[in-house]
């Protein structure tokens, strides 16, 4: 909605129903010299013909009417190949997993670190031609996952299936504190810094459980 996209210059499409978030992201991308076009909802983005140059989609996951997941699915259906970085609210693990499965290349939890977002977007723009989605990489997986204890593997499985710590603790009959400790350990062993990375890795390794319900789950009791 702001900077005029040049045909060759890379462009970032921002889809967020929240005007302030959209505006602040525009300024953030402008500050690093990226062209930005903002959309208040999925429909208006889908209605817009996309330019020829490298492009990246940054979209909120939770939006009224058409959610971020719906947007990704609509893009897949159309065959539009555009790398997508999804922004999710804190605790939306189930949604994040679904987003990655639906073709997002990354997801970033709110409130996010600017560098993290810019890295993700820059990476996406560079590999704009790369096929979205995550292919399981067994060699890589084996190297990482072998380091985990059986209990840590169990915790990992439950974490990426979107279960909050409290429920994991109950499922494994251990205390929440112990779950937190396991989580910290396995993230260290797997060399991942964020939940997003963890989920991505789990997906690559084919560990990530499919969320039980197809709806956008609301994990209000999620605690870290």
């Amino acid at each position, binding site marked *: 909605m702001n900077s005029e996209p040049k045909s060759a210059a890379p462009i970032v499409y921002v889809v967020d129903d929240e005007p*302030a978030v959209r505006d602040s992201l525009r*300024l953030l991308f402008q500050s690093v010299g990226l062209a930005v076009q903002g959309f208040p909802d999925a429909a208006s983005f889908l209605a817009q013909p996309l330019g020829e140059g490298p492009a990246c989609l940054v979209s909120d996951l939770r939006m009224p009417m058409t959610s971020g997941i719906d947007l990704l699915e609509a893009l897949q259906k159309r065959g539009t190949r555009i790398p997508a970085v999804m922004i999710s609210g804190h605790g939306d693990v189930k949604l994040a997993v679904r987003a990655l499965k639906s073709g997002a290349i990354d997801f970033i939890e709110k409130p996010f670190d600017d560098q993290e977002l810019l890295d993700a977007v820059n990476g996406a723009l560079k590999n704009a031609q790369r096929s979205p989605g995550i292919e399981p990489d067994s060699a890589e997986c084996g190297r990482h996952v072998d380091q985990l204890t059986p209990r840590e593997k169990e915790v990992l499985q439950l974490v990426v299936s979107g279960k909050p710590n409290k429920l994991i603790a109950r499922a494994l009959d251990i205390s929440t504190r112990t779950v937190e400790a396991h989580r910290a350990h396995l993230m260290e062993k797997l060399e991942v810094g964020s939940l997003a990375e963890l989920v991505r890795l789990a997906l690559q390794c084919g560990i990530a459980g499919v969320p039980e319900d197809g709806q956008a789950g609301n994990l209000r009791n999620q605690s870290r």
Partner: protein
Amino acid sequence: MSARPAGSTTAMIDSPPGVCRPHWFRAAVLTAVAYFAAGLLALDGFPLDGGLAGIWPAAGVAVAGVLIAGPLAALGVFAGDFLVELQAGFVPSSALALALGTVVESLVAWLLLTRVRPIDLHLARIRDVTRFIALGAVPAAVLCVASRLFVLAVIGQGGLPTADQSMGLLVGFLGHGLGVMIVAPVILTWYMRHAAPQHVFEFASLLLTAVVLNAGAFTATPIAPGSAPLYAIFAVVLWAALRFGPRETSTVMLVTSGFATWSASSGSGPFLVASQSDALFSLSQFLLVVAATALFLAAAVCERQRYLRRVAESEQAHRTLIEQMAEGVVTLDAHGRLNYVSERFCAILGQARSRLLGLPLTDVVVAGERAALCAALETCTAARDVTREVALQTGAGIPLRVSVAMRRLGDTPRRPAGIMAVVADITERRRAEELAQLHLQQLAHLGRVKSMDEMATAFAHEVAQPLTAITSYAQAAQRFLRAGRAADPALAEALEGAYNEARRASVIVQRIRGFVQDRAAQMVELPVESLIGEALHLSAPEAHQHAVDLHAGACPGDCSVRADLVQIQQVLLNLVRNAIEALAGSAVAQRCVSLNAYAREEGLIEFAVADNGPGIPAENLERIFDPFFTTKSEGAGIGLALCHSIVEAHGGRLWAESLAGSGAVFHFTLKAANHE
């Protein structure tokens, strides 16, 4: 005036206790003996020429006998009269016919006075006296004449030995009538009341006076009619009627008539002016007038006493009722002054009754409310019923809130007889209302905390938005500065954006805090538009989360309600949240909740929260406002019950309408602020 013992009212009306009907045989024998004795007395004591008596007391005995003992007493009448007639010198056949005539006389009197127009034998009511004379004495006299004419015609010996036949018949007529009027009441009243008179000495002096006066009136030879002693007899009758009753009065009459007849027959007294039958005629007229006067006067006095007693009893009962009431009762005269105060009113006020009587009611009201009460009293005088709440100035000096229900006494506003006011101490009621309000507040607070608990995720999301924006704005600004682009207008834009979002976040936090705070209700004027706007703000996060469109419409023009902001906000929010939750689980494509308000004619503002969800099943519609009724797995069922209580505490009404499949509408009303 109160010569009678209290409680004799009932004894005079019904058959008195302790007076039982005598056995017919005894009654008949007694009647026969008494009749014979009375007949002999008349024949021997007051004989006129040819055995005609100026007064025939036996007729009274006969009537009294059948009235007391029933028709079988007529057997005694028959026997007594037969003997008397024989004694008087009639042949047996005539005596038999005359005795049968007398029996007919008494039976007719019995029939008329017990079956046709029954009387009370106390003769203590004017009605009874009238009936007694008209249906007892008059028919007896008429029948006597008839039977004598019959005997005269058929047998030839009619007991009318005087030369002047018509005069003889008239004297016989009057003598029978007088016999019934003078003798029967004495027997009847003494029979009905055996007890000695209340004031024995006074009664004795009454009798003595009667005797002396009569002696003076009738024995002094011969004085002119109209002399003082004759009329003094009326004074004795008055004395008896006013101080005693029918019994004593009829007794005095008996004494008087005894003297008068005796004197007339023995050739002395005021009536002996011409022939003996003329004298007899004058005497009869005199006795007739005195007897009727005495009977009526005694009955009138009795009736008045009974009436007064009844009024007194009724007043006592009402007074007791009024004094027993939990409310104080006062009456005001036409000038608004207290002329009656109940004990309870004195207690409420803490003042002595003597100090209150005569004071204007406005004087016991606190100074600030006197004008209002005056206005209310005037309204009451014009419109009959008015109720006001005022503060009374109590003896202890503490103002006391009371409700005063006033009613005009008297029929028309033009001639007010005063006002009656019922004064209720409403302090307790107020306290209970305040307590209920406090409980409602506490419950409402809990309800809000619970609501916030349920809404927390939506609010976390709501607050996360500005925080995310602030972070990005700040980071963008940082990057502009690091890149040396301090002059870039985008930098100012970023900082301004961060500032605006920080303010927005703090508004959200304040709003939540204001909503959850526990506080006393404050009734203030609230613009409807801002109420609705705020409700939409608070429910926006949840609506957003469940992809529900919120629509609002406010009253046209600037209308306001008088209400407690937080409580009404809670009602609106609860209803909107319910609507959103109803939609959240539904398969409706265009989820929509609308919040509207419009002014109604009666000075009410109606709010309506409508959704296009699945609606409420009819069987639940009646129960949704019941506490602890819920269809949600996680609901406690207090939300709507609480809304209901809050709206009712505001004097409004909350109701729901729903058509299955086409959503539900919740309505509630509040008083408009500009409406009194």
